[in-house]
């Protein structure tokens, strides 16, 4: 038994070491972003390794949500939005003309601030991403729905009730359903925009445990207002202030020994 734990530990350390050396999963190069004439992101450079959790923190309106939404091009729907610089996923600039936006989004899952399940059954919610790709085979769908719900730690609670309307679930369950829905299309990156801010503490801790689990398979970017949450779940933390990435580094270092005054003030709760 002890040997086994040891070997798991070793394996995890190995994993960690691998993660440090693997090529970057996500990167941005000199990114500026504007809404009309208002500049919301200022020369942001960030690199993210695969299978890590990166927390984006900062006061409201600092640009962190805009930054998050660059990676699945959700900002494209805002008429006045404009960006400069490169956003690179797996070595490819995702804003190139050739990139098909729908294809991109199948590889980049997103979880929103407020749980937003479709007004359909639990099953159809998870199957949606597959159905729009034309996958309607019942066995395949059953399999993936189950797998995704297990991964999002919701399966045990809903397995007898898959036909039930998703809106009848509690807020925390809805959010885990939204995570299952994102996982079903097998993305490699998951973007989370304050996924626990509308939830009670118990649901929040479930989501946090889940994030830790998901890290084994996915690269996760998470926007959060909750400092403790950032500290608990993330490997790296980026602090945004007025559109600039003020400081970016290991979470431990950012929280215990921030290099920048603004970071220190924000983390210690002096503003924001």
């Amino acid at each position, binding site marked *: 038994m002890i040997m086994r734990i040891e070997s798991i530990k070793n394996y995890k350390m190995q994993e960690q070491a691998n993660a440090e050396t693997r090529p970057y999963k996500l990167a941005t190069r000199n990114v500026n972003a504007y809404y009309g004439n208002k500049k919301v992101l200022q020369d942001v450079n960030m690199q993210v390794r695969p299978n890590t959790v990166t927390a984006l923190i900062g006061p409201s309106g600092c640009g962190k949500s805009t930054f998050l939404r660059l990676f*699945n091009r*959700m900002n494209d*729907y805002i*008429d006045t939005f404009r960006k400069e610089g490169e956003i690179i996923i797996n070595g490819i600039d995702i804003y190139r003309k050739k990139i098909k936006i*729908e*294809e*991109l*989004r*199948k590889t980049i*899952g*997103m979880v*929103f601030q*407020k749980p*937003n*399940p*479709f*007004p359909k059954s639990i099953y159809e919610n998870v199957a*949606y*991403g597959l*159905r*729009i*790709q034309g996958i309607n085979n019942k066995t395949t769908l059953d399999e993936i729905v189950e797998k995704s719900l297990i991964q999002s730690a919701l399966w045990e609670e809903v397995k007898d009730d898959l036909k039930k309307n998703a809106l009848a679930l509690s807020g925390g369950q809805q959010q885990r359903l*939204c995570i299952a*829905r*994102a996982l079903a*299309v097998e993305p490699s990156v998951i973007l989370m925009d304050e996924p626990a801010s509308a939830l009670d503490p118990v649901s929040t801790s479930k989501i946090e445990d889940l994030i830790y689990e998901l890290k084994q398979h996915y690269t996760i970017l998470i926007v959060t207002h909750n400092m403790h949450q950032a500290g608990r779940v993330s490997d790296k933390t980026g602090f945004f202030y007025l559109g600039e990435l003020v400081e970016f580094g290991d979470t431990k270092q950012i929280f215990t020994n921030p290099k920048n005054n603004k970071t220190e003030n924000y983390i210690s709760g002096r503003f924001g």
Partner: protein
Amino acid sequence: MNNATTNRIKDNLLKYFGIVCTLSGLIVLAIFIIDILIDGVQRIDWEFMVSLPSRFPEKAGVLTAWTGTLWILFLTAIIAIPLGIAAGIYLEEYSKKGRLANLLEINIANLAGVPSIIYGILGLEIFVRRMNFGGSLLAGSFTLALLILPVIIVATREAVKAVPKTIKEASFALGATKWQTISRQVLPASASSIITGIILALSRAVGETAPLIVIGALAYVPFVAKTPMDEFTVLPMQIFNWVSRPQHGFIINAAAAIIVLLCFVFVMNGLAVYLRNRGQKKIQ
């Protein structure tokens, strides 16, 4: 008398004033319906429903009129519904917000307010003369479709706008295209409101007389329309014709025809209310 008492009296006064205002409309409607029922209900029987019009009030019936109304309802619906929904979706989901969109919006709102007789004149010029439909069902349906199009467009837009943005975002984030999002999320979520708007618009079309008079619908049509190119009459035309006759028998016929028309409209409005309630339940 202290302040609280005066306030309470004011409160009560306003309440009773409100009740009187609410009732005044309903009482007038009730008087009208009772009056019509007293006059007309004796005349309604199977014979009245299946008889052709006639010079003699006792022999005259509303067969051509109600079949004409059904025809008009059907044709107007298949012309106006696809156009209205498509236009509403385009304006809400596809068109870029800007000066052109504003212009379109103002124009559509204005069109909804244009008097129906103007549509009649438009229909006369375009459908009856230019397109050579004559005073046919088709000309009448196109004219009425134009009349209710703005109402359907506005209803569709409002319904589509009411679909939460978060639902659309969730769909896009999973890699859905715009059309997939509209057809699988937006339309199902807004369907009951859209249908309600359409039914209310159609029930307005059923009651219209002026534009049909202008395009030359006839009051006396001695046969049931078989194709959309046939001449026709509708219930309001028949009523209009009968009330302007001097014989008392036709006045009774008119009352009976009004009851038939009211049944049409009440059933349609009832359906609209039912669908709206069902839609609200689904969203909750």
